[in-house]
């Protein structure tokens, strides 16, 4: 316990979030927290097994002796920090009991006793007390503690004098981490966080080393001056605001003194979030690739956001990404403003939360929902305004998002904007056009156009966009839209597009289309929404939305405004599709209520002019992010907390995954998203549960074993989850030691259930993320499972049982976790049946994610090992949002009735997501409850409220606008076949669990049949005996056949139950882009790559081979083929493949010498090798997960994996595509 070197600096945005009221809000919860935190201190048991492990540590101990010393000096230097720190850490128990920190510092032993006295313990725990004392004494622990308590004394005195401490103790009581943070003024030791944390989000975790250094120096110097200043200014407000102010003050001052790079970093960061303009095509994967490459090594995982950031330090390499943002002084200024704004929000809302302080825990949850709903704007508006003026002196224009001032004059971005709806990541239909050719003047003529849009005028009477919109109308009257062109399926054999299929563009006028949400984030199965339920029923297509709300974006306007303008009745956020009736009023596009435009909103920060509310960024972008005020918080934003629960039974040690996990974690420890409050902990389990005390100051990690798995408890109330920065050395130590600690274990049992219960107890005070690594069927304690799979049934064509969970233990656990804002992510690495159907529940309902590595072995299965490595890298470094909720609203008349994805539906339309990650996709099904006759447009809005890893509360809002049609033909014209198939896949998963697999398969086939039949009956001029589909749906039968041949739904082919269940989980939780790759992989021929029609990305030539049909007929012995299955790339090499190709690309002299297990392409100089590699890396860069490459020869056992993806071919158990078509045709004509 100690506050040593690791003291993370606190002046973070997170700290800011504490300002004002939220502390009170937290009060009720604190009660709950206390419960968890407290009672557990004494009960430690050290079974005999304990003696086994220490030897491992002893080796390392020498190094550690130094640590305390290092730690001391900064402390002494800095009163502020030290005081809080020590009080909190040295006497945790005291904190819990007596809120007032200032009294006295007890040494740890004392506090422990006190603690025990006050908190009534169960019999078991009191008994444990003595044991605990003894054990700690024996283990070097005590000495460390004592030395701390000594420091503690010193610090405690300073506490009382510190200005900032007003009310502090209270806070600490509830929510310990943040407290520490807000109190501390970072000095030398962790300066970097100061900056980092302020701007949450945008930084993905990887901070570039050199940037970090800059920050260090900068912060340090400026901070010392800033502190006094801020205190003066803000004391009256209360302790809470002090912190943030400091930072703001600091940053302003900084702006002058800071060197160019430092400020640029910040500015850039800000801009990346705030880049309102869509000057740069937000687009496409390929573009992202461009950004990332020059970056200092963020790698694929860093994804969009980081890619914006990377250029910062150098700026020069990336002129493109930040052309407009470069002026450093200005940006620094902006930053300062933003702080100010933020602080204000906090302060202004301070009074509000008081009212809710008396709520009990249960109600808290409710409140949170309410927070989304409740009217935030009105309550906070006036005070904020005042504050704002006072502080900023009218500096508003300079403020943040707005600041992205380089914002395009509306006219400028036009060309790039227009291309957006089309190009989005997909090459347009013309073969020559490649998607990476950036914002180019694409402007493809919209094929899917047709009338039905005239009402638009009435809808938007006041908007001046209108004039231009009418211009576009004339184009729309073509006789028959391309998407309706009938395609004879049985005769037309080449229906696959040459490159990836673009999302259909809603038939809106050009202005609205420009504004519309990107199809990558938000897609509807029917881009022309039928007017009535009857029409929808006739079309026989499902109506639903596919969402990818937290996608990594390269450009996202971030809005810091004291008022978030929302409809007063339905709480819709203002969006580009509302209509302004006049200057002062706007009409909600979801419920049609007329609302007032708040005074503040009249001012347009972009143009710095007054009276142009429709030019505000909120109204110019359909995807925006708001920085939320404290009205949107129930408690102070939580810190990032990560807990790893690792299986260390014999089976796990055999598989050898620990090495990979620990290694990945070590490498990415600094890149974990978070701020200075980030906490981390480890639990391992076999037949017992082992905890690790990583409290800073210990000379080595301390293992605490709990063998009482029937009644699990935490052996010590704190120091199991430790601050990442403070205890970094210990953590590294543990990670280095862990893989070897259990090498000789003979324990074969796995007490997963108790370990999870312990993890839940550990996490419940804060919430966060639990990552569970499991390698076998849990066999002990609560939640134990039995093998349900009958291997003889694997290829059964009739009944597939046990797709549902066997016990409700994991579901209950998940719901408990979800209630405490904790998500459980499952990594299952097993070679045998592990009942994923039951285990998956822990992730499904807690908004976690599931990874499965069948027959994992670190040596025997290198492909899986590599996959785990890559997945982990992405997993650990990707963005994360905590304590999130998502609400989907739609225009009156539509209603959502079913949700798909990993979450818990807390109330009718509120999804509770303990964590949100950029790889999570969702789907919803809708029905039309009231006919939509009186409207020509419908809108859908998702609002995702989350806490960023930097402790900022943010709301990401996507709005999609679609036209309403009243004829069946139009409905078909607007069908989005990919979305339809993905939604059907989700529905089929539900069906197979609730009913049976056979039912689900029938339903899929019927879906195709019914819709084609319905289409054919509308087009009366068609021959009845021919199977015809509209162009928009021509791939429908193919995709459904692909679904039927998926692991999830196939029958007749031997499929392990876990594989099947995993495929189902994937379908439910993957976003559309990934899911489509999984359902229908893309195959390319790569042995004759040519530069024709190649695209240029970052000065690299990327050849664009056409997509091949997934059929063996396309495979030739002379060729080499690449199949892109999303998470894996297969390269199949024909027997007679050109030796030059094998030599150049694979690096082997001939076909025979190519090894069986090859997962990498050598870097050769030859042109063909270069082309191949640039093509593969281009494909890789287009997705967050870096896929594993597998080279397959004919005699390779993995061959079956490859061939099972050739879905147009016939297998023993399933039809070929042509047969499938014939079957459908027969059924229809019957």
């Amino acid at each position, binding site marked *: 316990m100690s506050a040593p070197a690791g003291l993370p600096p606190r002046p973070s945005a997170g700290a800011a979030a504490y300002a004002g009221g939220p502390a009170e809000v937290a009060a009720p919860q604190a009660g709950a927290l206390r419960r968890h935190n407290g009672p557990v201190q004494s009960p430690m048991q050290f079974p005999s097994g304990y003696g086994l492990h220490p030897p491992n540590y002893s080796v390392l101990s020498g190094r550690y002796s130094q640590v305390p010393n290092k730690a001391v000096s900064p402390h002494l230097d800095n009163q502020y920090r030290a005081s809080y720190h020590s009080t909190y850490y040295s006497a945790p128990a005291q904190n819990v009991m007596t809120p007032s920190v200032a009294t006295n510092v007890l040494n740890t032993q004392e506090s422990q006793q006190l603690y025990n006295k006050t908190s009534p313990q169960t019999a078991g725990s009191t008994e444990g007390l003595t044991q605990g004392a003894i054990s700690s004494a024996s283990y070097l622990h005590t000495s460390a503690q004592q030395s701390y308590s000594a420091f503690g004394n010193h610090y405690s005195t300073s506490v009382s004098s510190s200005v900032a401490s007003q009310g502090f103790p209270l806070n600490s009581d509830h929510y310990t981490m943040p407290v520490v943070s807000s109190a501390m003024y970072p000095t030398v030791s962790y300066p970097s966080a100061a900056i980092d944390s302020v701007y949450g989000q945008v930084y993905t975790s990887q901070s570039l080393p050199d940037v970090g250094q800059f920050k260090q120096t900068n912060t340090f110097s400026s901070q010392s001056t800033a502190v006094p200043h801020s205190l003066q200014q803000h004391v009256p407000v209360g302790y809470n605001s002090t912190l943030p102010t400091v930072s703001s003050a600091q940053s302003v001052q900084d702006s002058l003194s800071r060197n160019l790079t430092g400020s640029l970093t910040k500015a850039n960061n800000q801009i990346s979030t705030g880049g309102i303009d869509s000057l740069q095509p937000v687009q496409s994967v390929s573009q992202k690739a461009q950004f990332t490459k020059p970056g200092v090594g963020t790698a694929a995982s860093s994804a969009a956001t980081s890619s914006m950031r990377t250029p910062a330090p150098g700026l020069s390499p990336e002129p493109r990404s930040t052309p407009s943002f470069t002026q450093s002084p200005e940006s620094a200024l902006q930053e300062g403003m933003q702080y100010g704004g933020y602080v204000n929000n906090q302060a202004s809302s301070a009074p509000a939360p008081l009212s809710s302080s008396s709520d009990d825990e249960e109600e808290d949850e409710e409140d949170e*929902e309410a927070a989304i709903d409740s009217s935030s704007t009105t309550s906070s508006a006036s005070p904020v305004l005042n504050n704002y003026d006072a502080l900023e002196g009218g500096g508003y224009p300079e403020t943040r998002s707005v600041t992205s001032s380089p914002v395009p004059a509306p006219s400028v971005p036009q060309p790039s904007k227009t291309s957006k709806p089309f190009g989005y990541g997909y090459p347009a239909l013309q073969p020559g056009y490649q998607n990476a050719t950036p914002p180019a003047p694409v402007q493809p003529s919209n094929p899917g156009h047709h009338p039905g849009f005239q009402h638009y005028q009435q809808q938007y009477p006041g908007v001046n966009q209108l004039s231009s919109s009418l211009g576009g109308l004339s184009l729309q009257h073509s006789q028959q839209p391309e998407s309706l062109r009938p395609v004879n399926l049985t005769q037309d054999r080449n229906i696959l597009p040459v490159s990836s299929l673009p999302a259909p563009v809603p038939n809106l006028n050009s202005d609205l289309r420009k504004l519309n949400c990107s199809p990558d984030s938000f897609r509807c199965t029917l881009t022309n929404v039928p007017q009535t339920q009857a029409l929808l029923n006739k079309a026989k297509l499902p109506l639903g939305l596919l969402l990818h709300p937290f996608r990594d974006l390269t450009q996202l306007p971030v809005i810091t405004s004291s008022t978030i303008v929302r409809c007063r009745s339905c709480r819709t956020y203002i969006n580009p599709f509302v209509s302004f009736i006049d200057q002062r009023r706007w009409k909600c596009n979801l419920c049609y209520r007329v609302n007032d435009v708040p005074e503040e909103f009249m001012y347009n920060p972009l143009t710095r002019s007054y009276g142009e509310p429709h030019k505000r960024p909120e109204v110019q972008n359909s995807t925006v992010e708001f920085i939320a005020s404290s009205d949107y918080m129930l408690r102070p934003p939580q810190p990032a907390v990560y807990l790893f629960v690792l299986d260390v039974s014999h089976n796990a040690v055999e598989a050898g995954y620990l090495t990979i996990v620990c290694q990945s974690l070590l490498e990415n420890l600094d890149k974990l998203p978070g701020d200075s409050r980030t906490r981390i902990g480890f639990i391992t389990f076999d037949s017992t549960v082992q905890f690790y005390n990583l409290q800073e100051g210990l000379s080595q990690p301390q293992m605490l074993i709990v063998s009482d798995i029937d009644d699990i408890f935490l052996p010590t109330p704190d120091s199991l989850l430790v601050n990442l920065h403070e205890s970094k050395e210990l953590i590294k130590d543990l990670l280095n030691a862990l893989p070897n600690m259990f090498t000789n274990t003979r324990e074969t049992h796995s007490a997963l259930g108790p370990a999870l219960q312990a993890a839940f107890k550990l996490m419940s005070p804060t919430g966060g993320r639990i990552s569970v690594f499991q390698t076998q069927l849990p066999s002990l304690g609560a939640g134990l499972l039995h093998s349900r799979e009958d291997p003889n049934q694997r290829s059964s064509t009739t009944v597939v049982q046990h797709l*549902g969970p066997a016990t409700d233990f994991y579901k209950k656990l998940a719901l408990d976790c979800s209630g405490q804002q904790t998500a459980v992510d499952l990594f299952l690495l097993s070679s045998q049946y592990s009942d994923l159907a039951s285990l998956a529940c822990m992730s499904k309902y807690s908004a976690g994610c599931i990874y499965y590595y069948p027959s994992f072995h670190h040596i025997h299965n290198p492909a899986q090992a590599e996959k785990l490595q890559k997945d982990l890298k992405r997993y650990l470094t990707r963005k994360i949002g905590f304590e999130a909720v998502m609400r989907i609203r739609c225009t009156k008349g539509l209603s959502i009735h079913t949700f798909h994805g990993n979450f818990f539906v807390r109330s009718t339309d509120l999804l509770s997501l303990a964590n949100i990650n950029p790889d999570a996709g969702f789907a919803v099904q809708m029905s039309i409850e009231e006919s939509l006759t009186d409207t020509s447009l419908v809108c859908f809005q998702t609002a995702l409220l989350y806490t960023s890893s930097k402790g900022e509360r943010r709301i990401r809002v996507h709005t999609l606008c679609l036209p309403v049609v009243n004829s069946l033909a139009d409905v078909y014209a607007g069908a989005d076949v990919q979305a339809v198939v993905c939604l059907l896949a989700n529905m089929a998963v539900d069906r197979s669990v609730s009913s049976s697999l056979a039912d689900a398969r029938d339903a899929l086939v019927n879906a195709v049949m019914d819709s084609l039949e319905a289409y054919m009956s509308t087009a009366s001029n068609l021959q009845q005996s021919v199977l015809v589909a509209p162009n928009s749906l021509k791939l429908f039968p193919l995709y459904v056949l692909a679904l039927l041949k998926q692991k999830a739904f196939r029958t007749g082919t031997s499929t392990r139950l876990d594989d099947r269940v995993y495929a189902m989980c994937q379908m439910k939780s993957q976003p559309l882009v990934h899911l489509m790759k999984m359902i229908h992989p893309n195959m390319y021929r790569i042995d004759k790559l040519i530069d024709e029609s190649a695209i240029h990305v970052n000065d690299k030539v990327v050849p664009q081979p056409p997509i091949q049909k997934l059929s063996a007929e396309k495979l030739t012995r002379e060729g080499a083929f690449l199949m892109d299955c999303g998470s894996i790339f297969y390269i199949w090499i024909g027997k007679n493949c050109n030796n030059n190709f094998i030599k150049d690309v694979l690096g082997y002299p001939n076909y025979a010498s190519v090894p069986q297990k090859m997962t990498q392409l050598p870097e050769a100089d030859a042109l063909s090798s270069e082309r191949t590699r640039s093509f593969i890396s281009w494909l890789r860069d287009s997705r967050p997960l870096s896929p594993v490459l597998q080279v397959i020869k004919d005699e390779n056992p993995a061959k079956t994996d490859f061939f099972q993806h050739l879905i147009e071919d016939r297998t023993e158990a399933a039809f070929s595509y042509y047969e499938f078509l014939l079957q459908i045709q027969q059924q229809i004509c019957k």
Partner: protein
Amino acid sequence: MESVVFIFSLIDCCALIFLAVYFIITLSDLECDYINARSCCSKLNKWVVPELIGHAIVTVLMLISLHWFIFLLNLPVATWNIYRFIMVPSGNMGVFDPTEIHNRGQLKSHMKEAMIKLGFHLLCFFMYLYSMILALIND
């Protein structure tokens, strides 16, 4: 004897009516977002078995006392209750599962079911009342 049977049935029926009303109120609370799915379901699941038993007792009682008509009237409802209870998938937390109640219109169907039961129990209530009075007079 006859009257005792009906007095008991009447009391039992009253309890079932209250229960049905409680179900309806709780479900509509959920519909209006006053409570969350988790607490709603745990509240309701507690009463599924008592309801089932309460209704089964009356049904059996009618069979024993040889009131065929009333027995046959009660039989389908009792069977449905038992069927519903048995058919809960092993992974679910009871008849009402918080993770599914908002999906596929389950909430609506639960509501409908509770309404129908309320109507049925009211009908039974008057029948028992009539029979009880008749029995008392006959005694």
